């Protein structure tokens, strides 16, 4: 269970890095006019930012080692 949580956190962090640092995503959104009526590039940056923020908050909440080394 603990291993699963750690793996989940690691996978989410790697996912953060991929969506933020993979240039084809920039090129893709740059060639879209809009996403649900909003500029695609702006939506991309805001979604990526929210995803990264959520990953750290969730990681803290479910981190089994968060209390270690007080």
């Amino acid at each position: 269970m603990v291993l699963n949580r750690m793996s989940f956190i690691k996978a989410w962090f790697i996912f953060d890095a991929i969506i933020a640092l993979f240039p084809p995503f920039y090129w893709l959104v740059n060639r879209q006019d809009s996403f649900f009526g909003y500029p695609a590039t702006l939506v991309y940056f805001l979604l990526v930012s929210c995803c990264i923020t959520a990953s750290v908050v969730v990681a803290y909440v479910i981190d089994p080692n968060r209390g270690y080394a007080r």
Partner: protein
Amino acid sequence: MIITFGLMLAFFAVIVLILQLTKRKDQSFTDYAVGGRSFNAKFQAMSFLNTWYPGAMFTAFGGLAAASGVISFYVLVYSLLTVVLMYAMAQRVWVWGKQFDLKTQPDLFSLRYNSKHIRTIAAIIGIISGIPWLVLGMQALGGLFQYMSLGTLSFSTAVILGVLLIALRQVWTVRMGMRGVVISDMAQGIVAYLIGTLVLVGLILWLIYEKGSSLSTLEPEMFSLPDFGSKEGPFYVFSLILTGTVGGWCWPYIFVRLFTADSVHSLKKSAALAMPLSLVFGSALLLFGMFSSVLPSVAAQPTDVWFLVSQEAGGVFLLGIAGVILLAASMGHIDGNIQATGAQIANDLIGNYRTLSHPQLIFVAKFGMVLLTALSAWLACMKLPTLFSLAVLAYQGIIQLAVPQFLGIFWKKGNALGAIVGMIAGFVTAITLEMGYVDILGQTYGITSGLIGLAVNLVIYIAAAYLVPHSGEEQSRVEALFRVSDSKSQSHQQIVDTANVR
């Protein structure tokens, strides 16, 4: 003018009062350099934000959003992604810091690579790279003072006054060290990022409802990113985000935040607290800049967007509040930079070659801070046309610390030879490309000189790790070092003794 300067002076007086009331005698150099590793998550979170987001966020990045639009969001993405890195390395770095009494970033390099000289090299790169940013921060206060004087002060007079104020503020940084920096960061951070966000949201609403600004009224170019065929190149945004993410923790004044927490728990909690704040503040600031671009005054002077819109929306009083917010953000960054540099001068330069007692270390750190403040103040009052270029160059240089730093924390094979040679080769590559081969950079599709240097650095580091493997003794030491941070037992003195053979 009485209102604007009155507000700033009142804020300055409150900060000084807080520092005076919380002053206490430092028992050791650890107390002075890292605040005795005593700060909880809330202090840690605000201290990180106040050091990470300087006053230039409101001018340079607000201006970038107003002038260039959505590309400015790269700063938000890397500011958040860098906290993921902090979360990942929190446990190992904090435990090493506590167990081996690490006080600076070069201290960690020295421990991990069992080398005295790497401490000096890392310190020199950190100190030299930080000075242009310190000077720029002081000069930015000149712009602030000129706006607060409602245009009555000349720029040179405003710079001198700004520098005098921030130099005066350093009296408490020098006297109180890290404890003073972190405590004042809390007050300054509340003003800069909590009140600052409220003001930004208010200004966005004013721009929407009073000025008719909206996403649909902005020029389409405001939403475009560099792509194939653009001047910057298709990998430009990638370079900016990667450089910012890994480079953030290479700055000594940011890295030392990992040593000031009272536990790993506090560090991780501080990340969880800082992220939502950072997200809301950063988004509000960049959207504010974009929405402001419809104003003719902002289109003419985008870097003054913060002052121009505040004054137009709320008159002199709101301009004064805007000045206080920018001053609060600037003070946090400048204080942190000066404190970390002073600690490095004592601990990693002088203290690396002479055995100094705790009082002697504190004295040298204070003396270094006074010298650095005086040098930066003097440089800030001079006209230095290449200063901004030097600052950009410094960033390409400082990120060369990333390879030995992150690989050293997460990978056991790296050695001192690869770390030192790789770092120097990466630094030289970045500087040479930036200074002598700008034409080549135009053909790299947006990959910056720093990233090319980083690739050279990485290849050398990995090659050295395999070609010159650790001796048996060093292998045991590194294994023990990693066991210290992985072990959940608090009584592992034997492991610590094995690891600590520097």
